[in-house]
């Protein structure tokens, strides 16, 4: 089998509660793999199962092809970076980094040397004698990574390690993490509920909802070809239009919606009569200006509820077919818009920029 991390029918229950439901995945060696999902969907639970802190109720976890059941966290070739880092506050930075080596019985001089090497890697050369409390947030972050890398794990597991940092630092650490991963070349399994983080760093992403892995794919697949309503609504902004499929032709399906007939790509083999949601991204919606250029299909006429001026663009909210508003942007051409709140306006989209998916729960905002 593959020599990365495999989850085979992994189900994890706490009493009656199913935290992870039948997860199947093959994470490749050297891959930067992310789990993306809202709070409480079971991401940490999966990660803890991979690192050995809890055993799957059913199913098998393999690392390098071998079954990990019954093997404790201290015996697995994984290293976990905790959400709160869990650095040892009473040890120096170097002792923190070398803790795993100390456990292995490596001699002091050699430990010091390795710690120094890792400090170079995380750009903290010569700061090994500081105490953890003397470091900044981003530096602590990097020390936690170095401490985990010191034991030369085959898989590094990261549980939302950037969530405590401020925005600037978080963006900086994203590229830093990606760099480190490419340099050391080991598998990173990364957990986040921040889609921006997942999209920018990962080779592949698994989107989770309520214990179920909804879709696995690279960033652009997840964004452009969502397979479920949850993925479509969770990753990026999206405008849902509810309706029944009334016509299927070739790659396209047409639904009957409050705003009329809307047509989009039919990637999930929907048939006539199915309940569906058609999703259109804000960037695919455009205003119809002047009556003579009105396109033949996919035109929505609705009331403008709000306008937000954002500088380069103007964000417009219109009444949708549910409580959720339709939102899209028009670019600022220097004159502001001629649209006023309360007016009706027409918007349209191209068939190929819309996707028709089976009806399902949307992600909460």
């Amino acid at each position, binding site marked *: 089998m593959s020599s990365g991390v495999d989850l085979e029918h992994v189900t994890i229950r706490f009493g009656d509660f199913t935290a992870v439901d039948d997860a199947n995945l093959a994470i490749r060696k050297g891959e930067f793999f992310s789990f993306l999902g809202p709070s409480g969907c079971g991401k940490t639970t999966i990660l803890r199962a991979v690192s050995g802190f809890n055993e799957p109720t059913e199913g098998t976890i393999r690392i390098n092809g071998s079954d990990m059941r019954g093997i404790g966290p201290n015996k697995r070739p994984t290293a976990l970076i905790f959400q*709160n880092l*869990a650095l040892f506050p009473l040890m120096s930075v170097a002792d923190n980094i070398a803790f795993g080596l100390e456990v292995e019985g490596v001699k002091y001089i050699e430990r010091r040397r390795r710690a120094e090497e890792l400090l170079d890697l995380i750009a903290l050369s010569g700061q090994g004698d500081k105490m953890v409390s003397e470091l900044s947030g981003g530096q602590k972050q990097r020390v936690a990574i170095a401490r985990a890398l010191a034991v030369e794990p085959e898989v590094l597991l990261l549980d939302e390690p950037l969530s405590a940092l401020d925005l600037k630092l978080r963006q900086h650490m994203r590229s830093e993490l990606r760099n480190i991963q490419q340099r050391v070349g080991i598998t990173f399994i990364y957990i986040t509920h921040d889609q921006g983080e997942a999209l920018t760093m990962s080779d592949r992403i698994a989107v989770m909802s309520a214990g179920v892995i909804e879709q696995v794919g690279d960033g652009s697949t997840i964004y452009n070809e969502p397979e479920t309503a949850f993925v479509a609504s969770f990753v990026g902004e999206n405008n849902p239009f509810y309706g029944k499929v009334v016509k299927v032709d070739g790659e396209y399906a047409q639904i009957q919606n409050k705003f009329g007939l809307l047509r989009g790509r039919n990637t999930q083999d929907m048939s006539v009569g199915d309940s569906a949601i058609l999703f259109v991204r804000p960037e695919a919606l455009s205003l119809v200006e002047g009556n003579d250029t009105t396109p033949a299909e996919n035109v929505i006429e609705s009331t403008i509820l709000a306008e937000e001026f954002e500088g380069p663009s103007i964000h417009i909210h219109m009444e949708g077919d549910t409580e959720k508003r339709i939102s899209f942007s028009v670019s600022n051409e220097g004159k502001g818009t001629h649209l006023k709140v309360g007016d009706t306006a027409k918007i349209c989209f191209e068939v190929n920029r819309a996707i028709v998916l089976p009806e399902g729960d949307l992600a909460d905002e």
Partner: protein
Amino acid sequence: MSDFLSVFLAVVLALLVAPMLQKNTDTVWANLRQITFVKKNGVLVSTYLLGAVFIWVGLMIVAPQLYMVDFSFRDGAIGGDPEAYTLKNYSYLIFGRDSDENLFNLLHLQIFLKTILASVGVTLLAFLLCYPIAYYLAQSTKGGTTRLFLIALILPFWVNEILRAFAFRILFGSSGVINVVLMGMGILDEPIDFIKADIAMYAGLSYAYILLMVFPIYNAIESLDHNQIEAARDLGSPWWRIHYRVVIPYAKPGIASGCTMVFMLSAGALAVPQILGGPSSLWFTQIIYDWFFTGGDWSRGSAYAFVLLFSCIIFVLAVMKFFKVNLGELAK
């Protein structure tokens, strides 16, 4: 009563009353109100607080102790001159009577040393018993279970100390539960005299102060982030190294606080050694007791008590220095 006490009380009263008697009472009050402590708590509360602390520390602790110090330097023996100061009470502990054949007062010195060493032993035993309990309660149990365990630990201490000591006598006696069970199982042919061997006493002392060991350690470990333990485990650490490198260093102030209290109280215990001690072995406090109540020599008793107190303090400070614990950390 002695002059010493009357002078002491007079000074205290003078300090308290003098400001009130002054003519410019208003300015005194105005100045008092400027003090942040008074500002924060109001005049009434701060007077109460200061007064209560003063009465507690000053009158009930410091004054009697000073009185005893004074006492320990006087000749309290029958026929001695109670006004003159002397060192003979202290020298008696070390050298004994001049007429003795030994240069040193071996009997008392031995008991003194045994008391200190045995207290160290009791402290270690209590620590070994309590650390796992405290760790388990702090890190492995959840709210309800923890409370249940803690109550189970506390309830036995509603029974008074003397009764508990007598209960141990019943347990460890030659026809006590332990001997009967061991003999019933065929492990022993004859009962072991736990009391003569002082085993009952060590067990009794270790048990007597178990709460004072469990709680500080429990408090310290409870605030340790469980992720740190898991992080250590994830990095390959076996359980003993997790304790040695992560948990114990973190809990050090709590451990120091527990050990200090158990050591001090064991060394100063009287009831348990009296009830559970073997007939031939004495605890140092028993000698002090004898000087006060049997020997009728309060001066010598005071001197002995101070030697015990200061030795314990110095010992504790030295050990704390060795383990790099600050005095302030004990109060954490």
